């Protein structure tokens, strides 16, 4: 059984922010693997640990800098990785899904895993889109994934701490929710080895149909009334507001 784990290289805005018409200067961004994708890698590695999977392969869609997340996954323990060379696709999950279909054609995995959503946009769409394009079953938001033969079983969180257990036949697409199975970290030695790993790239003809035309800092203050002062005076004001509602 072979698992393909799809990873997104996401940018997070650090402190100061300047928006230049339709993009943010990369100097203001810190890039990393999307949070939930780390849990997808962990779920795949646990399956390999339990001998449910023989090979775990990582893939990302993006420019050259995105290979960083494939290296991260290799330092965690995936067998190898590659990059689908695609630019400016971040806002078009369907295009990403189409690119992943090409990766699936190349690799013929039995299972495709990825995070339930990206940390930057949270659209939750690449997984279901990829599954629909492949005609494969899709399980969204799994916390535990297990495979027995050709049958996949997954646990999903429901409201208030209840869980449901669902099942489908392979091949399948599963999106993984952040949860209790914390992603492992590679040792310093693993990280050095991952730096040297060869990360092939494959080109694609697929282009995004969703383009950024303008960008601006969000009005993050909304209509809020600001309260300031020392902790004691803030606490007194908060307490008065709570008591007024009790």
């Amino acid at each position, binding site marked *: 059984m072979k698992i393909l784990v799809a990873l997104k290289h996401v940018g997070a805005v650090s402190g100061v922010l300047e928006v230049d018409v339709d993009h943010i200067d990369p100097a203001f961004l810190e890039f990393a693997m999307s949070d939930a994708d780390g849990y997808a890698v962990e779920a795949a590695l646990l399956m390999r640990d339990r001998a449910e999977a023989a090979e775990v392969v990582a893939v990302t869609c993006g420019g050259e800098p995105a290979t960083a997340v494939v290296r991260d996954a290799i330092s965690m323990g995936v067998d190898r990785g590659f990059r689908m060379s695609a630019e400016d696709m971040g806002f078009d999950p369907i295009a990403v899904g189409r690119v992943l279909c090409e990766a699936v054609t190349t690799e013929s995995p039995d299972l495709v895993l990825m995070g339930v959503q990206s940390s930057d946009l949270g659209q939750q769409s690449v997984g*279901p889109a990829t599954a629909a394009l492949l005609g494969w079953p899709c399980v969204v938001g799994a916390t535990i994934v297990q495979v027995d033969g050709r049958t996949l079983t997954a646990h999903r969180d429901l409201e208030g701490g209840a869980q449901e257990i669902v099942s489908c036949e392979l091949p399948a697409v599963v999106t993984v929710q952040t949860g209790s199975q914390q992603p492992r970290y590679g040792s310093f030695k693993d990280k050095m080895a991952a730096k040297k790993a060869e990360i092939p790239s494959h080109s694609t003809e697929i282009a995004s149909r969703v383009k950024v035309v303008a960008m601006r800092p969000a009005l993050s203050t909304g209509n809020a009334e600001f309260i300031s002062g020392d902790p004691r005076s803030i606490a007194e004001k908060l307490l008065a507001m709570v008591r007024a509602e009790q």
Partner: protein
Amino acid sequence: MTAVVVIAEVSGDDFDPITAELVSAALKGGAEEVHVVAWGLSESQAVGYEGVKSILLADGVPNSVEQVKELVHQVVTRTGATCVVASFNWRNTEFAAATAATHGMSIVTDCLSLEIQPSGWRVSRPAYSGKVEVDLHVDGGLVALLRDRVWPAARRDTVPVVKMPTLTSVSAVTQVGSTEAPRSGVDLHSAGIIFAVGRGLGAEGVPEFVELTDRLGVSLGASRPVVDAGWLPHAHQIGQSGTSVAPRLYVAFGISGAMQHLVGVRKAQQIIAVNTDPRAPIFSIADVAVVADGTEVVKALLELLPRS
């Protein structure tokens, strides 16, 4: 003729109020024909909205994402719609992305605006964890999941109801078991006042926060990272993959406000947020914003509330 299909949200025996916002977004966005798709209502319960051409009522209630996809396929084919509009929630994202992929449409979630263009659609949505807002041009058809409380409500009006054919698709994913929620005694649904803790207070801040909610006599909530880290049980989790709440007062400490959290607290009547980062997205929906170290404020509150 630009037709837009609106996927209704239903609660009880009527449309949920969000449906009126979806209809209004479709009409204001430039739709010439709006059709509302619904299930779980009888023909007489399905009272529509001004400007809506028809209500397309499913035969029965779809029992899986596959059947919702099938229903949307039925109505998109029937109406020739180039845009499908639904509410941005956990349940809708799966069928929406699959529908978009199947019909060669694009998908944009958490939309804050929607406007028809000569060759597609223009929408805006948050990016970079809500710190930025982007305007997007979408070439061709679109499935748009809209944020609630952005558009005004459309007015009610009786419109023709059309019954759709029986849904026949069978899901490839089956439920084989479930576990009950642990008995926690936590009922966030009906809580009047909730104090919620986020990652910003750190593991060491959680016991003091729990003590504070005890002394205040308010309910205890948490963000997903706090629950994932094992600092509090899942029953306390608020947001899209936890519990959606509607208290009179919601007070968030050290919660930056990921979209999935904000979705779960929007129905609170009053929101107070305490965060060290003045740009934290939680402030965008707060009525009262406190830029301060939550840990210090918790300590000060505990000093004001001696143990009885």
